[in-house]
């Protein structure tokens, strides 16, 4: 597999092409695959020097692309393209909290997460920010309105904690999930602040943290101590959720409300700490994680400098190490929560971007890995899409 910046990937007429959307600390890149996913055409950088936290193509129309952006100097915004990045237009009203009367209210530092809405609501998008805030657009990402039931609710504000309680680059709202069967059924997660569910389209939310562990010495009944890193809903079984948490890997089969720590079945020497979680689009028993070192001072590197993906094919009962092609030693990078994704091909293609700016791909569900791009800035997010 090789990256090619000069020749376009060969494509049969009418075939669907796999596209990787790579968001980094200093810009965004697109990678277009040939039909065999053997060679990749690079398109970028877009927004060179901008901090791009996520880049998502709307699967409902196949052409609306949203980018969550800021720079070191400037405030956060959202850019929108409907021509695969040839032109971009800034949102008219980017995500922003309601202004407070005393001027001491919160300000969005960056938009972190973008989720297209339900198929029946073609112009609806959701956004999660740092600090934690939930926003909705009803016009395809042009104008964004805050959810005051979360953003301004005293109880939720307490659960969100302070900036010091969150991740090093700011506490985050993430993993905004829309049930494909019901546009009013939403999940979201906050680092910190737990997992929450709404059954009424976001008018109200309730915590969904039973069974989740917290850092030793703290009370799991306190929502604020919960730190979900990445929550995913199974496309083939929307009653099943998987979660990579600060304290382990979990599965939840609704209508149950109690998460099961399936990460206990990971090798003890590797542990079950990490950021991303990826689910097979057609098999709810298959999922992949990318463990990191969460011991002592939390190095957040590959355990022992030996990166590996772990896969389960039975809902988390057993896990298989998948490291063929990955560095055998002295590789101290890791993969952030948005930086690992699957395509919908058969077999599934898996992709991840590293904190050291490498983009890795597997055409066979993780059995063999190849690096398709290196020397990129720190990779924040990798999304897949299919384009005509």
């Amino acid at each position: 597999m090789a990256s090619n910046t000069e020749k376009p990937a060969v494509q049969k007429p009418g075939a669907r092409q796999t596209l990787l959307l790579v968001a980094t600390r200093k810009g965004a890149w697109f990678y277009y695959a040939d039909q065999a996913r053997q060679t990749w055409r690079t398109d970028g950088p877009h927004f060179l020097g901008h901090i791009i936290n996520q880049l998502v193509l709307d699967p409902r129309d196949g052409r609306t692309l949203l980018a969550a952006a800021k720079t070191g100097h400037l405030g956060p915004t959202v850019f929108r393209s409907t021509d695969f990045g040839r032109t971009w237009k800034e949102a008219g009203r980017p995500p922003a909290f309601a202004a407070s009367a005393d001027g001491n209210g919160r300000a969005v530092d960056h938009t972190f997460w973008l989720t297209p809405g339900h198929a029946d609501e073609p112009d609806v998008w959701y956004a999660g920010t740092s600090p934690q805030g939930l926003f909705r657009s009803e016009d395809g990402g042009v104008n964004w309105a805050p959810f005051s039931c979360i953003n301004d609710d005293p109880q939720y504000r307490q659960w969100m904690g302070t900036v010091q309680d969150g991740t090093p680059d700011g506490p985050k709202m993430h993993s905004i999930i829309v049930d494909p069967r019901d546009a009013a059924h939403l999940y979201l997660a906050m680092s910190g602040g737990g997992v929450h569910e709404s059954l009424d389209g976001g008018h109200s939310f309730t915590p969904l943290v039973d069974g989740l562990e917290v850092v030793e010495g703290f009370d799991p009944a306190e929502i604020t101590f919960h730190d979900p890193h990445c929550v995913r809903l199974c496309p083939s079984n929307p009653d099943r959720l998987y979660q990579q948490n600060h304290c382990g890997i979990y599965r939840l089969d609704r209508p149950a409300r109690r998460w099961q720590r399936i990460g206990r079945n990971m090798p003890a020497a590797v542990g079950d700490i990490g950021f991303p979680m990826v689910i097979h689009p057609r098999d709810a028993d298959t999922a992949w994680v990318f463990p990191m070192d969460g011991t002592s001072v939390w190095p957040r590197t590959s355990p022992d400098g030996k990166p590996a993906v772990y896969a389960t094919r039975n809902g988390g009962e057993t896990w298989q190490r998948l490291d063929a092609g990955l560095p055998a030693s002295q590789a101290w990078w890791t993969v952030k929560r948005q930086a690992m994704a699957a395509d919908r091909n058969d077999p599934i293609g898996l992709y991840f971007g590293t904190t050291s700016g490498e983009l890795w791909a597997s055409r066979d569900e993780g059995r063999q890995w190849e690096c398709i791009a290196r020397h990129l800035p720190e990779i924040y997010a990798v999304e897949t899409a299919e384009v005509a």
Partner: protein
Amino acid sequence: MKVLIPSALHSYTGGSKAEADGSTLAAALADLDRRYPGIRFRMIDEQNRIRRHIRIFVDGVQVVDLAHPLDPRDELIIVQALSGG
């Protein structure tokens, strides 16, 4: 009045030189946003605070209060402060 725009915001103005009217800094920034939609929010947050890495000078003197009065002969300089690598 004349407004000197930092390079990070040239994507809005097309260059370093712009014009804005207003009897206060807040009014001038609002006018700048009318001329170049979106530019204000990149400098001023939703609580009307100047963002951390933005500095605004009026005739060479740094101003932190958006209510600061302006004269049409004033020169506004907007600067992107150092923000790390």
